[in-house]
């Protein structure tokens, strides 16, 4: 069976009554099947009006879960969201960005999902809607591990909420892959830095993906950055081995764990410098 609800309410009811697999852009669902036929029960979310659109509210920027990466990349958004928009432009290729959604990226919860670090670095939250109502969770409490999220089987991710608190900051997203584009990340980093009146860092968020089962913030490093001015430092001087010691990368065909840790450290340093340059521009 195939259902194509036009409202979120109808989608929630279908999911509760019929079960079935949710599909948005299909760029994770269909390729995973290779040439096997797709599963019997599919609920297509692409026609649910409530999942569409990006709206700038008083306290938060609301990105509908069904927003495609190309829509996010082209939206006019405050500069603090530059890292998220940069990530949007690195998800696969143009055609993948034209189909794939931010909601699908979060719910699929690949350790290499490019959307997660920028959202962690913006203190973003998500909204889940189920038969028992709506709940909000911070992204860090939603993406729990490799393909593991806090979503209950009867819930639909409806939106991503980005508090406007950090939007005036500078941000950067850097992704390391075996080649420039269309690759699964070896490591990716997102940084948001807010300058204070003294010209030093007043607020910092640093998140690293693909180097642990779920992307992580580097709390110790964030705390140490506050009150500093990174100008003139070399990337490696900004980040110590201890700062990345909490990551737990894997060895796989793309890179060894040791290489990922090394790369994470260098990339975090570069992203700090890039975000700071943006913050002071």
């Amino acid at each position, binding site marked *: 069976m195939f259902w*194509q609800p036009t409202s979120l309410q109808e989608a929630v009811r279908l999911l509760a009554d019929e079960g079935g697999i949710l599909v948005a852009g299909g760029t994770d669902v269909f*390729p995973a099947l290779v040439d096997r036929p797709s599963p019997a029960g599919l609920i*297509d979310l692409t026609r649910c009006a409530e999942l569409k659109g990006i709206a700038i509210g008083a306290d938060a920027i609301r990105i509908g879960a069904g927003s495609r990466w190309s829509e996010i990349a082209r939206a006019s958004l405050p500069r603090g969201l530059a890292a998220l928009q940069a990530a949007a432009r690195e998800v*696969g290729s143009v055609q*993948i960005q*034209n189909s794939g959604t931010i909601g699908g990226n979060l719910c699929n919860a690949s350790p290499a999902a490019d959307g997660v670090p920028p959202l962690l670095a913006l203190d973003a939250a998500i909204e889940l809607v189920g038969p028992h109502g709506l709940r909000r969770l911070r992204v860090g409490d939603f993406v729990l591990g490799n393909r593991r999220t806090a979503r209950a089987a009867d819930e639909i991710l409806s939106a991503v909420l980005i508090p406007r608190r950090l939007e005036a900051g500078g941000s950067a997203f850097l992704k390391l892959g075996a080649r*420039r584009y269309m690759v699964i990340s070896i490591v990716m980093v997102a940084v948001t830095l807010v300058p204070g009146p003294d010209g030093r860092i007043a607020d910092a968020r640093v998140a690293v993906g693909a180097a642990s089962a779920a992307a992580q913030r580097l709390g110790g490093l964030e705390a140490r950055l506050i009150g500093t001015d990174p100008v003139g430092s070399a990337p490696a001087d900004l980040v110590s081995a201890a700062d990345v010691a909490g990551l737990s990368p894997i060895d796989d065909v793309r890179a060894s764990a040791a290489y990922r840790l090394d790369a994470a450290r260098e990339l975090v340093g570069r992203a700090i410098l890039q975000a700071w340059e943006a913050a002071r521009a």
Partner: protein
Amino acid sequence: MTTVSMTVNGRQVSADVEDRTLLVDYLRNAISLTGTHVGCDTSQCGACVVHVDGRAVKSCTMLAVQAAGSSVTTIEGLATGDELHPVQAAFREHHGLQCGFCTPGMIMTAVDMIRRHGGQLDEATVRHELEGNICRCTGYHNIVKAILDAAAKMQMPAAAE
């Protein structure tokens, strides 16, 4: 089975297919437009790129029912009678193909790229935006030349986004 109708290359089409039929299989098997190719089945290679309501997408990542009611353009919809589309003509002129398997997807990607960037299209952008299309004859160089030449000849203003 569901009756799935859409507009393909300006023509209204309709076919009874299983719900789980991918758009690419609908195009190739249900309405016999075999110009759109299947290379990898995992959305990597780009041989199946078509335009759905003006968006370039890989038609193996979408069900036919998801495209119901949409307007779809495939490689067969580009030429006007016997006259090749400028991008097709440029691929021919610049030898932008060897075996030809990736060509329909390359051309659909190129047409979308030129529509969005118009005269501002430069080589770096072409190479970047071709990342979703794989050619195993290693023919990228002439493909890039063909796209740049077609863009110059078409000199369309960049479409508003």
